[in-house]
């Protein structure tokens, strides 16, 4: 151990060394260390490089707000994590950490050339630079920006860890387990409330962990703390550590991200790495405390310069002195205590530099007692040291002028610019804030949720006031349940009260062009950048933020927002609240995507609906595709076949003999009741009254706007029952739409709607031999063409099962669809396969189905239509009941634009080169030699190779397409412009004779 580790200091386990590596070098820390504290104990401050200028950086904080000390951590394949905050990562055996944003090494980084060029990279750099020439975008700017963008390297392997998700309901949720939160939790629990207390740190205690000298209720802080932990447990309070409240949502729902394994030497078998909690709380107590504000001065970013509170935490909580010779720079009393603690631990204090002329006399006395040099009314004009701070140069301020400077040697600096309440979660609720002039901070104002905000989070300072406030918050929370709390605020001795002054930027005598005073450390935003943004017209802080990127780093402005605002306000000559505060949004700290995803990944990403025949298809090595939430067999390749070969074979077999197709996924809705026909009349374009029982019709469904929403064959089972089929993806939408009209527009109609999609398995047989296969298996129905013609349906038995049989054709061949109860689907399929053997029956998938229907010009809603296609556009004008007085969408068809000429109409395309497959989505033009941009006539909607026609085919939407039959159009594609002729989309057996056999 180095001399920087205080013997037996802090809360770390001195008897338990933990080995780890940083940038390949081996180090040893102690159990209880964070990566940052362990490195600091080894004298390492340099932990990263900044984003833009690649400036060497060390940790400035000891918490989750850390902007600089971000490292990559890993523990084996797939388990790597970029941007781990070294200040939060607990040390574990074998931890491998690597610095980021540097090449080739942290100490020598080529990217640092950006720092020399800093005048070029001023505010608005991206907006000003990457503007022209246009051609540079693809080849120069974008690759350069992409290479430079982001910190760290995203893992490429699949994450082997699991992530959990839980819900919880609780009376009182207390966020933040510092003294305020502990007092609130105890008070509410004693009154009988169910309490959950969460804290993002490894242990509870908050600021008390860094302030052991305070005495509470007559006990040293840590003894008191241990007692309270026991009391919380005894009262049944759920205490969750390593758990960050990342977002506060409506009606008191708070999201918690719990980290379960990153701190463990070994990952327990099956343990989730992180767990997302969605907690619905009766009352929320926000006790998030305050964040220390950096001072903005020239050279404030060198490794070794950190917040005074962080230095105090490293010393008291981790037993690590941040250096041998510390300079203290402050505008607030709190840093004086840091100086005293450091001095008492054997750290030389080079000086306490206070910007105020008259700091607290008691503090001055304490400093004198320790013989610490004190410089009051001073400013920092500069610092030195490349990879570690070597000195600070300070000067007195008199009447706003910088006096004669002196340089003070040091190897670390503890700086404090005051404290700002952590209002992030409160702001998530849209609680309003008010600006407190005296403390130059926003305080919570009006609440919008059932919450209390207490302690330093609402601007209180010192242990006695925040403990009392915690008790008050706990009492208020409990009383909202009608429970009476009887707690008294604990007495405090040796409290550390304090006040401070506020500065936007510390004055300096250095030439303005050479000043580098950082506001946002990670994104390298300087005070000058913010002034420049204001002078270039950014008057709102939201604009300043986007122009300079201030507050857009991974700490989301926790350190930079208030300083940035003060500088902008000062430059504008306005009060800060007039300039505004940028909105805080969830998550409070960066949260892994996996935590949000939880169980929803891989096969659990969403539901996969499978038909009863799916297992059989899987055994046949079918290739599947997702359609809606269904998994459908796309084609059934035989050995050595690719998709094209398989589809060509399946198409030929179906057209020449018979194909079998699993159509179970088709949406099915039963429309039943005395008013069923009337309801159908009102919803579908077609007339239904005269459709006979046992007859079916192709139906078209529009939206009220007149555009095609869905289609499908509808059969009349009885006078009062229609069997409606919908597209696979549209089933739920169609039922929703029907229900909407039934429930809210026509509640007087006697009609009931039932989804039967899952109840029926559907097997389609298509091809000239379809009847021959089906006939021997069918009972109770004459399948002859005369008795059961095209567009008929009947209830009968097929293969011994109760069946509803449709005769229809989506292929142009003689076709049947056999519906049986889903549980018999597989048996039916197998029976048909067996009966089809003499005819070489061929199973085909969705791809073949698409080709066969395209050869006939049958549309697929959503592929050949896009929500702007009317029935007439699609060539389905015949399906619109001419004598009907109303149906959904009818009035819209008469709107001028929908009745106008020039609309895109569905046609066929015959490419001049029959071997060429047009690209679906490709644009169509009349003359490719016209200057760009030229008028687009339309686009290709479907395109396939047709075995039956011996050439490629396509469908397209083309302006006035039906008037352009035989005309030549051009289709520009990446490999060149192709010629095609406009034809009818119905290219195969145009008279439809084959389906009527």
């Amino acid at each position, binding site marked *: 151990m180095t001399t920087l580790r205080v013997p037996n200091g802090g809360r770390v386990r001195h008897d338990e060394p933990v080995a780890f590596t940083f940038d390949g070098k081996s180090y040893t820390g102690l159990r209880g260390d964070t990566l940052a504290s362990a490195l600091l104990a080894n004298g390492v401050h340099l932990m990263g490089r900044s984003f833009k200028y690649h400036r060497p950086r060390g940790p400035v904080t000891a918490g989750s707000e850390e902007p600089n000390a971000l490292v990559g951590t890993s523990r084996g394949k797939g388990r790597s994590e970029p941007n781990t905050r070294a200040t939060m990562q607990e040390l574990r055996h074998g931890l491998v950490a690597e610095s980021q944003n540097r090449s080739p090494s942290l100490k020598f980084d080529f990217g640092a050339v950006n720092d020399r060029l800093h005048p070029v990279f001023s505010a608005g750099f991206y907006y000003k630079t990457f503007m022209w020439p246009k051609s540079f975008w693809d080849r120069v700017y974008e690759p350069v920006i992409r290479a430079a963008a982001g910190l760290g390297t995203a893992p490429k392997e699949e994450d082997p860890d699991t992530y959990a998700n839980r819900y919880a309901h609780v009376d009182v949720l207390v966020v933040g387990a510092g003294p305020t939160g502990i007092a609130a939790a105890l008070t509410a629990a004693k009154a009988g409330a169910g309490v959950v207390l969460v804290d993002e740190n490894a242990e509870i205690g908050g600021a008390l962990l860094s302030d052991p000298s305070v005495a509470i209720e007559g006990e040293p802080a840590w003894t008191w703390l241990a007692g309270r932990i026991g009391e919380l447990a005894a009262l049944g309070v759920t205490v969750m550590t390593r758990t960050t409240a990342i977002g506060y949502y409506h009606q008191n729902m708070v999201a918690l991200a719990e980290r379960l394994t990153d701190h463990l030497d070994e990952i327990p078998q099956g343990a989730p790495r992180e767990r997302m909690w969605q907690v619905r709380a009766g009352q929320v107590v926000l006790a998030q405390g305050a964040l220390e504000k950096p001072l903005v001065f020239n050279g404030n970013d060198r490794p070794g310069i950190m917040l005074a509170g962080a230095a105090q935490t490293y010393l008291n909580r981790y037993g690590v002195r941040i250096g041998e010779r510390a300079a203290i720079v402050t505008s607030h009393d709190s840093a004086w205590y840091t100086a005293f603690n450091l001095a008492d631990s054997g750290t030389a204090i080079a000086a306490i530099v206070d910007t105020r002329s008259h700091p607290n006399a008691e503090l001055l006395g304490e400093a004198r007692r320790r013989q610490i040099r004190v410089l009051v009314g001073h400013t920092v004009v500069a610092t030195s040291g490349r990879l570690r701070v070597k000195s600070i140069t300070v000067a007195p301020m008199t009447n706003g002028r910088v006096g004669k400077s002196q340089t003070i040697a040091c190897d670390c600096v503890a700086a404090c610019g005051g404290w700002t309440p952590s209002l992030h979660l409160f702001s998530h609720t849209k609680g309003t804030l008010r600006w407190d002039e005296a403390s130059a901070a926003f305080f919570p104002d009006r609440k919008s949720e059932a919450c209390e905000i207490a302690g330093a989070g609402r601007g209180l300072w010192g242990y006695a006031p925040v403990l009392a406030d915690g008790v008050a918050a706990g009492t208020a929370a409990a009383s909202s349940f009608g429970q009476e709390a009887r707690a008294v605020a604990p007495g405090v001795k040796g409290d550390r009260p304090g006040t401070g002054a506020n500065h936007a930027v510390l004055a300096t005598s250095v030439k303005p062009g050479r000043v580098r005073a950082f506001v946002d450390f990670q994104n390298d935003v300087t005070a000058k950048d913010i002034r420049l943004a204001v002078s270039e017209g950014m008057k709102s802080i939201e604009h300043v933020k986007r122009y300079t990127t201030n507050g857009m780093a991974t700490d989301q402005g926790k350190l930079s927002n208030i300083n940035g605002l003060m500088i902008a306000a000062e430059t504008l000559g306005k009060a800060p609240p007039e300039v505004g505060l940028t909105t805080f949004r969830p998550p409070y700290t960066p949260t892994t995507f996996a935590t949000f995803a939880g169980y929803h990944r891989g096969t659990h990403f969403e539901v996969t609906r499978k038909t009863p025949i799916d297992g059989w298809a899987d055994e046949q090595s079918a290739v599947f595709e997702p359609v809606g939430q269904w998994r459908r067999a796309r084609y059934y390749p035989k050995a050595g076949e690719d998709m094209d070969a398989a589809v060509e074979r399946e198409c030929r077999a179906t057209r020449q003999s018979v194909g079998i197709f699993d159509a179970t996924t088709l949406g099915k809705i039963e429309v039943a009741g005395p008013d069923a026909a009337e309801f159908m009349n009102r919803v579908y374009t077609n007339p239904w009254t005269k459709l006979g029982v046992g007859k079916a019709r192709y139906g078209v469904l529009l939206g009220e706007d007149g555009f095609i929403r869905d289609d499908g064959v509808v059969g009349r089972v009885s006078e009062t029952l229609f069997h409606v089929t919908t597209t696979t993806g549209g089933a739920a939408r169609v039922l*929703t739409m029907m229900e909407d009209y039934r429930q809210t527009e026509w509640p007087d109609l006697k009609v009931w709607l039932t989804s039967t999609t899952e109840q029926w398995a559907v097997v389609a047989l298509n091809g000239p031999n379809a009847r021959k296969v089906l006939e021997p298996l069918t009972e109770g129905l004459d399948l002859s063409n005369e008795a059961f013609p095209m567009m008929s349906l009947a209830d009968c038995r097929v293969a011994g099962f109760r069946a509803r049989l449709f005769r229809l054709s989506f292929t142009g061949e003689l076709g049947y669809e056999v519906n049986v109860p889903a549980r018999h689907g597989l048996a039916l399929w197998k029976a048909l396969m067996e009966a089809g053997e003499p005819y070489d029956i061929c199973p085909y998938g969705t791809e073949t189905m698409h080709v066969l229907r395209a050869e006939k010009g049958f549309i697929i809603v959503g592929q050949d239509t896009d929500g702007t296609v009317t029935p007439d556009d699609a060539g389905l004008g015949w399906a619109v009941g001419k004598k009907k007085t109303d149906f959904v969408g*009818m*009035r819209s068809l008469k709107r*001028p634009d929908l009745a106008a000429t020039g609309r895109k109409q569905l046609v066929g395309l015959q490419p001049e080169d029959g071997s060429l497959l047009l690209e679906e989505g490709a644009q169509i033009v009349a003359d490719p030699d016209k200057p760009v941009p030229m008028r687009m006539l339309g686009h290709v909607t479907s395109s396939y190779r047709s075995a039956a026609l011996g050439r490629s085919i396509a469908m397209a939407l083309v302006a006035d397409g039906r008037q352009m039959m035989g005309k030549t159009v051009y289709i520009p594609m990446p490999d060149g412009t192709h010629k095609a002729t406009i034809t009818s989309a119905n290219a195969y057996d145009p008279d439809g004779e084959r389906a009527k056999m």
Partner: protein
Amino acid sequence: MLLIRCPYCEETLPELEFVYAGEAHIERPKDPSSLSDDDWRDFLFMRSNVKGPHFERWRHVHGCARFFNAVRDTVTDRFLATYKAGEKRPSLAELEKAE
């Protein structure tokens, strides 16, 4: 996540069980063909888009599947009331008094 009271189930349940269904109290004209193009356009597309209490429809899709009406403040995202389809719209003054 919002909590929504279904007036049919008479239970307050998480938003996940519901879907939004557009502005409420827009009745489909009895005889659309008799409407002028402008009136039909207004029925189809024009919505009030209020800042504040908004009358809107929801559907308890993963519950009773009924459509119902609600008054939700679009600024605070708070539900002021929910009521059955077909019931008359509650008075805003009374709702605000109840707040």
